[in-house]
């Protein structure tokens, strides 16, 4: 069993395994969406491979990060965009 570690999503602590994407952490924290669209709809990952930008959120102070491509690190702080 690989050693798990904690990340923070919108202030909530989530325990994840190495290799977990930030997108997965958002969903595991119980947030169904990553961002709000220009028309105000909730949006969540579509392509899962860094192309569609639907999973973008703020990671460690950097905005518009594609969370499906970003691997969790211990202590990572993720903030969903407008959701």
């Amino acid at each position, binding site marked *: 069993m690989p050693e798990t570690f904690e990340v923070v999503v919108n202030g909530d602590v989530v325990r*994840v*395994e190495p*290799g*977990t*994407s930030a*997108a*997965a*952490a958002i*969903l*595991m924290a119980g947030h*169904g*969406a990553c961002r709000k*669209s*220009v*028309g105000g*709809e*909730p*949006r*969540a*990952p*579509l*392509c*899962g*491979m*860094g*192309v*569609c*930008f*639907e999973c*973008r959120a703020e990671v460690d102070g*950097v905005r*518009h990060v594609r969370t*499906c*491509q*970003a*691997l969790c690190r211990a202590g990572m702080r993720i903030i969903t965009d407008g959701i």
Partner: protein
Amino acid sequence: MGSERGRKIVVVGAGPAGIAAACAAAEAGCAVVLMDDNPTAGGQIWRGGGGREAAQWTARLEASGARCWYGACVVSAAGGTVVAERDGEPMRIEYHELILATGARELFLPFPGWTLPGITGLGGLQALARGGVPVRGKRVVLCGSGPLLLAVAAHLREHGARVEAMAEQADFGRLVRFAARLVRWPGKLAQGLGLQWALRSVPFLTGAWPVAAEGRGELESVLLRTVQGTRRIACDWLGCAFGLIPNAELAAFLGCRIEAGVVAVDEWQRTNVAHVFCAGEPTGIGGLERSLAEGQIAGWAAAGQETKARALFGRRADLHRFSAELAEAFELRQELKELASADTIVCRCEDVRRRELAGYGGWRGAKLQTRCGMGPCQGRICGPACSFLFGWDTLSGRVRPPVFPASMGTVAAAGERQRREARV
């Protein structure tokens, strides 16, 4: 071409084609740099592992001496230099030969409700699950088209998902003909039969496709059009994609000729642009074996090892025949063009609806007037959809830098290079 030790070769894309190209070129004595946007090697097919074959290739890559840069997004390339962005910082790498192995992505077609959270691609859902998105005990419906449907269903079931149904848009008859022709490729036939057996308890609907997804704020159910009429299935996840399309944006940006949506190459995998090669899915969707063969040919050819490259020509020709069978069997039906209603969002970045796109004769006009394709994905999702729905050419000669969204610092670094070239 001539062999030359120390020749600098940059390979863009570390999926099977890119790994194979980098191995071949590095083993021939070239100085190879392999770059990829993803955090690790393997591309989409070997994301998060990939079994023995993947392990063998990655071990060979490590032993080859090729330098690997992961998490590096190529934003521009011209005149012997690739500009990429990594951790927000620009990086520039010079090359004598450039090999594009940029892979493929899924084709998404808009239908009512397709923007609800819980709806992903097929490979998309698999990739998310490999990244730790929990699927155990979840009700999953998979639909769209292509061999990925079965592969993803099997993978998700292994990870505890409850796959409620699989819906393939192609008719049963086409699939039977395809299966009959697979006897020429026993490995692929065995793979297909193995998946069918593993999935024998899951309803597999043919000539069926999604007509709407429903839910308040998130996915609750999908409506499938089947030969027996419309069926509503409750689900937590809907994986849906209508086959694969080449990632040809970088090739188009470099001026490579695109024919029928794929990058045109000669027998050495050379494009029409000097010193630019292309291998794998961008030259035509064909799967793992074709990508490995083309990658090696490109790597050997770029390194000047014609004899070694030529040795794989026969294998490649055979795999090209498989690609043709694949394209015929899973050709998209015309009814799918009518899935999106007037009110359905086509461009998810800018929330542009189908009705707003009516009356435009082409991609450029629609982009300028409606902002369709002008968001962060730069039309990578809605462009191919518009191409299918309206017949618009969304690729050739229309890709501008940066090829991928980048920080202003990186854009400036790329622009600086272009200005210096313009002066010479």
